[in-house]
């Protein structure tokens, strides 16, 4: 791969001869969860060139078309440059000192008058890990509220719920290197070719080198990924759970499940009266009797023979599954994640090279920045929980907080938080590098909550690099430094920092 990057660079250099006096600095792309290594070319303080980092251990010099725009997004004339406050429906430029004083006064007044839970923080998988960690520490360990959320609630929360409910801990256990060891790769709800292109190239390269590799695609759309599929399952949108159950049915019916692994490592539970209850393997088999391929075809529209083929190929391991928002961003998303884990657990396709259920992250720092730092309403850094006294005590000690500062009850999750903002129960909110004024469901209510003038309207401050549909209705707008302008880390899908 280094040779590709080198030769391509030489070609471009020969054509343009522009790289005299360009200095190169190491960085990572800030666009998606793949986490490609890049080298940024700059002359003085101007970014002028970009290339893949051939020394990056996993992406080895590859980038995708998105990365072309990295220098441009930093140097656009549209950037926010000065703090602005909204007065009488108009935005006026103010000094940094005045902006910080205003924000501090508003938050302090809210906390003193209405308590710690009257303030909230809404962060982002775009922020640096250090930024999310600092906000989490301030709000939970300093102010004493768990009203701390982030936009991964809208994308990765299903994956978080799936991993925690299945394995007891968040975060996938695979890595990109598993691609090269897999015999079957299962892509579910993932247009990897266009959303994680560098990962898709590794899949293609592996398949080109080993023709025996199979690619199963489960996606209602015929995306560019489907063109490379050994079998493409295209269910009616929302009916893929039946397909996944049916694959499990076929695997067990045909005796391809791993009895030894199941006996040693797997428990089977159902929810009865709101609580998990053990049913055993036999109970699971009985449940799956309702998901024959023929019935799954009636439910999902996927032909029974394709489901059978996909199930058969899945057992030709090691099997690596990748999925992303097609599985996560929907109701029943946690269940869909559980069903992916089920397939790996009943076949023992887990915890060995090439075998893993691997949820791909969309944002560059949802894993490292929000999940690992615990910047959600119910968790604390690195897998700890606000509900556990020992975890709260450990973080209070680490943060130098007064014992008892971190509440034991989870705060408001994202949707509830913006509803509380709309009812004026949240008095002050800080939004960091995300755009709920465009991206939240039931948007009109959220926009009214953030920006509609009214008596006792909550104070909303937004930190961002560009004008957005959120900055246009905020009370205070603070310009953010961007990728390449500040130091920090991203933690990408395979949790490489």
């Amino acid at each position, binding site marked *: 791969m280094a040779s590709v*990057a080198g030769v391509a660079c030489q070609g471009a250099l020969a054509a343009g001869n522009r790289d005299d006096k360009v200095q190169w600095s190491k960085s990572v792309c800030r666009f998606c969860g793949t986490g490609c290594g890049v080298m940024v070319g700059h002359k003085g303080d101007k970014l002028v060139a970009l290339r893949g980092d051939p020394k990056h251990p996993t992406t080895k010099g590859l980038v995708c078309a998105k990365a072309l725009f990295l220098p441009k997004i930093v140097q656009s004339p549209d950037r926010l440059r000065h703090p602005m406050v909204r007065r009488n429906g108009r935005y006026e430029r103010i000094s940094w000192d005045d902006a910080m004083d205003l924000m501090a006064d508003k938050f302090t007044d809210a906390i003193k008058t209405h308590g710690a839970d009257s303030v909230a923080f809404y962060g982002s998988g775009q922020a640096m890990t250090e930024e999310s960690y600092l906000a989490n520490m301030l709000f939970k360990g300093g102010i004493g509220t768990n009203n701390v959320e982030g936009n991964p609630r809208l994308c990765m929360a299903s994956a978080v719920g799936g991993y925690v409910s299945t394995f007891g801990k968040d975060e996938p256990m695979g890595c990109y290197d598993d691609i090269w060891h897999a015999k079957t790769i299962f892509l579910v709800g993932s247009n990897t070719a266009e959303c994680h292109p560098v990962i898709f190239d590794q899949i293609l390269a592996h398949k080109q080198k080993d023709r025996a590799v199979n690619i199963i695609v489960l996606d209602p759309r015929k995306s560019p990924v489907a063109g490379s599929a050994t079998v493409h399952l295209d269910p009616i949108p929302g009916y893929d759970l039946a397909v996944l159950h049916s694959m499990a049915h076929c695997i067990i019916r045909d005796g391809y499940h791993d009895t030894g692994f199941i006996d040693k490592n797997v428990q089977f539970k159902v929810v009865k009266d709101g609580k998990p209850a053990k049913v055993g393997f036999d109970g699971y088999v009985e449940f799956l009797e309702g998901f024959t391929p023929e019935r799954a075809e009636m439910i999902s529209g996927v032909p029974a023979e394709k489901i059978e083929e996909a199930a058969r190929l899945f057992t030709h391991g090691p099997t690596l599954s990748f999925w992303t928002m097609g599985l996560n961003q929907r109701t029943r998303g946690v269940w869909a994640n559980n069903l992916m884990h089920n397939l790996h657990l009943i076949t023992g396709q887990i915890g060995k090279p090439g075998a893993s259920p691997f949820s791909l992250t969309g944002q560059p720092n949802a894993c490292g920045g929000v999940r690992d730092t615990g910047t959600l309403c119910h968790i604390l850094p690195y897998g700890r929980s606000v509900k556990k006294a020992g975890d709260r005590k450990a973080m209070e000690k680490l943060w130098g907080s007064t014992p008892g500062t971190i509440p034991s009850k989870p705060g408001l999750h994202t949707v509830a938080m913006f509803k509380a903002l709309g009812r004026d129960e949240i008095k002050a909110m800080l939004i960091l590098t995300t755009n709920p004024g465009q991206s939240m469901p039931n948007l009109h209510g959220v926009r009214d909550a953030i920006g509609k003038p009214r008596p006792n309207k909550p104070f909303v401050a937004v930190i961002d690099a560009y004008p957005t549909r959120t900055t246009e209705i905020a009370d205070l707008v603070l310009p953010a430094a961007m990728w390449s302008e500040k130091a920090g880390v991203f933690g990408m899908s395979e949790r490489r920092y």
Partner: protein
Amino acid sequence: MAIVGAFARVEVSGRDATCGLLDAIEGVSTFELEEVEKVGLLIEAADLDAVHGLITRDVRRTRGVLGAWPVYANTEDELADGRANEQED
């Protein structure tokens, strides 16, 4: 003007025909790489948007191309033309 170095991953069978199709795209030049599954590309266009369009539409949809990935981009000329460099102080 923007110059980008990239490569296309291609079906090995029919590689020569694919290279011919790629060379026929205005702004795209091909060159040999060590691996037969890849074709080196030099892409020159008016600006990054045009390069992006060439890669994601024209190159990627060429018969025999499985995908296209940039490895190098120089945008100094594009940024120097004033369109992207005016900043209010």
